[in-house]
């Protein structure tokens, strides 16, 4: 019944006069000196080929999704799209490590993770298309709305995970953030709450090197963002974010630890945003082409294809199948967004409260009258 009261093992005592050592040993909490890698290492052989192929398939489809969405912004069919191009390994792995009962807390850049989690690819774009705020059912899909105010979804993930733990349900929450987001107070407060409450939550920081135009060196002076974990008393893990099986392994381990009562983990995935911040951004103002070119060599989709082919785990057929699936999705996106969204102006007043207030009823009546008058005026013109 009292989950929190019964975990005295995690309640290390406070400081006592005369004590000589800190409360717990920090060593296990610190990330390894080098990021975890699987591709190009012998570790690859230990992985289930089916899993690797599934990762590959999702990467290919994900890349195409990113590309098509970006094209749709240029055609004015989406209001904005913050592409995760170059970060697909993180997106896809984050979705794959979660079970159906787990919850994902994405940021605005994580549409692909949402889609990879199983949310309809078109519904996932609703916010960015501009016809409604959230196009999918967060409760049914166990996927929180795409979150724009930076790091604010992190405490939500903690609270949900905490509530699940109190109910003794084996639910894990995964919160996705950017490197810039780690500077916000909400990031700090969320990690601290998670560690104190031993909530089953995993924080995935996609360090893509920039917060819009601001490079990491002007964002943090830490040895790595994963090193922040020790200050909360949780393990920090550093992984090559463009190495899909590595991200999958590190996240998977963290998720399972959380599920088994081991508490939260902070994972930093080192990756790169190959496109501009969004379609509205001009990345040439703040970064060099050579830098982008270097990262194109370390592209998560290419890396995966190269290494799986090298290991004999991928053939032309599988490559073609993935590519066809990707094209089919792109075609569906084009078709759907070709026509305008259906809109009901009166929906403005739905869902502000459980029941509209008297004030909102008045305002809805005003809008309805205006719309009726417009219709009448149009009808008159047509006569």
């Amino acid at each position: 019944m009292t989950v929190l009261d019964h975990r005295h093992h995690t309640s290390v005592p406070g400081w006592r006069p005369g004590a000589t050592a800190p409360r717990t040993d920090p060593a296990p909490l610190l990330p390894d000196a080098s990021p975890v890698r699987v591709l190009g290492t012998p570790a690859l052989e230990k992985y289930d080929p089916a899993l690797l192929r599934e990762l590959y398939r999702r990467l290919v489809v994900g890349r195409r999704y990113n590309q098509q969405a970006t094209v749709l912004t240029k055609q004015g069919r989406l209001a904005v799209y913050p592409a995760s191009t170059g970060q697909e390994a993180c997106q896809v792995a984050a979705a794959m490590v979660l079970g159906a009962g787990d919850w994902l807390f994405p940021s605005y850049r994580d549409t692909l993770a949402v889609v990879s989690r199983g949310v309809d690819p078109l519904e996932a774009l609703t916010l960015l298309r501009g016809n409604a705020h959230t196009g999918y059912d967060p409760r049914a899909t166990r996927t929180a709305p795409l979150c724009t105010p930076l790091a604010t979804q992190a405490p939500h993930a903690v609270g949900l995970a905490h509530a699940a733990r109190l109910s003794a349900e084996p639910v894990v929450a995964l919160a996705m953030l950017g490197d810039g987001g780690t500077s916000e107070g909400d990031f700090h407060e969320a990690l601290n709450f998670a560690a104190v409450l031993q909530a089953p939550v995993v924080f995935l920081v996609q360090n893509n090197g920039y917060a819009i135009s601001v490079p990491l060196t002007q964002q943090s002076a830490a040895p790595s963002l994963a090193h922040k974990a020790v200050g909360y008393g949780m393990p920090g893990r550093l992984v090559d974010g463009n190495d899909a099986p590595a991200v999958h392994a590190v996240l998977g381990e963290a998720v399972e630890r959380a599920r088994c009562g081991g508490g939260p983990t902070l994972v930093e995935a080192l990756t790169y945003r190959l496109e501009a911040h969004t379609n509205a951004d001009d990345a040439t103002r703040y970064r060099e082409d050579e830098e982008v070119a270097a990262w194109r060599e370390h592209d998560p989709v290419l890396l995966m294809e190269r290494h799986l082919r090298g290991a004999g785990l991928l053939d032309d057929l599988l490559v073609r199948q993935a590519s066809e699936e990707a094209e089919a999705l792109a075609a569906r996106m084009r078709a759907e967004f070709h026509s305008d969204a259906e809109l009901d102006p009166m929906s403005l007043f739905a869902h502000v409260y459980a029941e509209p207030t008297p004030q909102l009823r008045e305002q809805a009546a005003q809008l309805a009258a205006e719309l009726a008058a417009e219709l009448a005026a149009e009808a008159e013109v047509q006569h």
Partner: protein
Amino acid sequence: MSTATPVRTSTMAQALNAALRDAMREDRSVHVLGEDVGALGGVFRITDGLTAEFGRDRCLDTPLAEAGILGTAIGMAMYGLRPVVEMQFDAFAYPAMEQLVSHVAKMRNRTAGKLPLPITIRIPYGGGIGGVEHHSDSSEAYYAQTPGLHVVTPATVGDAYGLLRASIASDDPVVFLEPKRLYWGKDSLDPAAPVEPIGRAVLRRTGSSAVLITYGPSLPVCLEAAEAAKAEGWDLAVLDLRTLVPFDDETVCRVVRSLGRAVVVHEASGFGGTGAEIAARVTERCFHHLAAPVLRVTGFDIPYPPPMLEHHHLPGVDRILDAVARLQWED
């Protein structure tokens, strides 16, 4: 509604405590969290005994971070719980402003009703307790201007119990503003009395000359002013709004139309305060019934003053009567 707590004399603080306890007994999804709400029972003792009765799982001392508290409560509500958050003082709720405005107020709307957030955010507010700076703000205007929130503020022992029960039961987020200087006032409390719905103003005193429209900490001051006004020949009604959002236009306008003269009284600074909304909407709706403009008696437009000077800032009986005197009686 509850048979748990019998009729008795109670302070407002005790009534709030009883409301929390009864809600937690009746509904296992009700959870309390905040700073010092556990062993200490809160700095005002509103959560006294809850951890003892319900355990830390249900009444949780959190780390010291208001955005974290509210953000955690949001996640708990997303999972299906019904969190009641305590902010220790008015000014210490500001760190949670982003979570409040960008998520609490909007989540139902953002998700087309799929993720309602039945969170109650209790905030002791207002001055008059001799607190040093940052302990006496009246912050209701920030919340009232934020669509998606309900804003409730009781002024009596009975309402403290009833409206807190109603707020916790509400499927919408409620900012529940507790007039901290009334915490120790006593009255009889019947927890079994029907729970007042959110959104209904009540006439605390009838009158024939003019109406004082008020809420929260200013209610007793207005009642005192109405009493003192008799000596000047005015028979003042006193209307207690109880809920700022949704606003009870019906009751307020009925009273104003029948009397033609009104003064709005609150502690918060006047400029851009809730009194402005009240005066503006009453005027819009009752213009032809008004014999005088709706006047406002409020705190000055200054940072909350040090305790030894606060009585000059707070609306008092004389300042209210001065306003009543300016209600164009000669007409």
